[in-house]
């Protein structure tokens, strides 16, 4: 990923457009790309989703299996989030063990979901200290064109809502949804020169100085944050980002919920 070179002339164009509140693809700085999704696409998974955000395309599969709880949380279920950036998704991605980028994405997505309290971990306990439900959320990137954080979080949340598991009290009956309620979402910003924009494309991510991902719960409260890249943000950037994220997540959430 680091080897990809963006031509100077393109950087200048992006800088210039940003001062006019627009971008290469015609969006305004605080506008997301086209969002498309479907759920329940993988028969072998308990829950699944396929989501595209502009040119970024992701499949998330949720597998729920019985396992043993962690000793320090004997009466709680387990959530494990994994992400792999496979060569399929972009020529710069390498095979083998998950890269730093992949691990960061998995952890940021995981944190947003976990910290929001979306999943009632206590209700995933089957028998304290012995048996709990383990939720494996695996993020598979098919095509990479920037902003994997937001795309993976949305796809993950959709797949969790789509998931069905065995009813412990009535194993013969219909499968039941996971004990989840809310729709935590993230908004990712990048700073390019002095401009702040959301939902960066691959090119925008490459030339950005700093990145900020904000996870928000249903009420618009902050549940997690992650700054990335080696540049800096100023105080005003963070505050403005907060307000923007709040507005945008309300809008995104409504779109995800209205299309079950």
């Amino acid at each position, binding site marked *: 990923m680091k080897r990809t070179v963006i031509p100077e002339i393109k950087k200048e164009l992006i800088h210039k457009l940003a001062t006019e509140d627009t971008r290469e693809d015609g969006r305004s700085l605080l506008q997301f790309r086209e969002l498309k999704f479907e759920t329940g*696409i*993988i*028969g*072998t*998974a308990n829950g*699944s989703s396929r989501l595209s955000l502009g*040119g970024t*395309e992701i*499949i998330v*599969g*949720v*597998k729920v*299996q019985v396992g043993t709880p962690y000793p320090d949380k004997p009466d709680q279920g387990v959530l494990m989030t*994994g992400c*792999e950036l*496979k*060569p*399929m*998704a*972009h*020529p710069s991605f*390498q*095979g083998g*063990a*998950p890269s730093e980028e992949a691990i960061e994405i998995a952890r940021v997505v995981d944190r947003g979901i976990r910290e929001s309290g979306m999943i009632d971990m206590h209700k995933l306990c089957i028998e304290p200290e012995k048996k709990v439900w383990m939720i*494996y959320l*695996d993020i*598979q990137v*098919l*095509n*990479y*064109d920037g902003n994997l954080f937001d795309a993976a979080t949305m796809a993950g949340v959709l797949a969790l809502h789509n998931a069905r598991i065995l009813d412990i009290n009535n194993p013969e009956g219909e499968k039941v949804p996971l004990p989840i309620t809310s729709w935590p979402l993230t908004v990712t910003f990048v700073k390019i020169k002095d401009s702040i924009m959301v939902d960066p494309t691959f090119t925008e991510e490459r030339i950005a100085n700093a990145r900020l991902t904000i996870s928000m719960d249903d009420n618009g409260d902050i549940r997690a944050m992650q700054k990335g890249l080696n540049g800096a943000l100023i105080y005003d950037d963070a505050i403005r980002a907060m307000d923007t994220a709040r507005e945008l997540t309300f809008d995104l959430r409504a779109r995800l919920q209205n299309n079950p």
Partner: protein
Amino acid sequence: MNEKIRLINDDGLRVDGRKPDELRPIKIEAGVLDNADGSAYVEWGNNKVIAAVYGPREVQPKYLQNSAKAIVQVNYNMAAFSGDDRIRPGPNRRATEISKITAEALENVILTNQFPRTSIDVFIEILEADAGTRCAGLTAASVAVADAGIPMIDLVPSCAAGKADDQVVLDVGKLEDNIGQADLPVAYVPRTGEIVLLQMDGHLTRDEFEKALNMAIEACKDIHALQQEALKSRYSPQKEGGDAE
């Protein structure tokens, strides 16, 4: 032991209602990914497979490069959520073997001598597995190679035959694979008549083997037509009537 579950009923139909020589429904789409040089998506029964191709490009790692021809590297991988139990990400012995035989099958048809010192990298992701993933993977991979514009002698269709309830059957399904008597994956190049992938496990007599092999080869020809169709509909400017006379 398996007497309780019958794989073929009195009408000669299999557990999923197919006749012994009937394929599951197959859907092939070429050019489904933007970043890859070539790609293809295959739905085969409940199998869902996506294949991506890069190349010819620089060889990684370098010492693998061949001064006379391109090398073909395949990575077959089952997604964590593709099976009954969650599959731990990363390579395992099964995936390594399938990657190897798939690469060898593709090398037979790709004109590798035109691209010395380069690598053609094929990535096969099994998104949902329903028996016969290596055949679906190779079928998808060869369409993806063609979609990448890499010169090749022919596409490589692949299909398995097998044996269930003492009968030779085509395109072994999941239950048949688990409790059936044999599985015989085949890949066949229609243009040259060559078999470029052949594996088998289970138990077949000589006659059964011949019957199964013929069945698989005939099916490969049908799949070959579907592969061609997928490429045509990707590259023809307007929708044509196809081969429907």
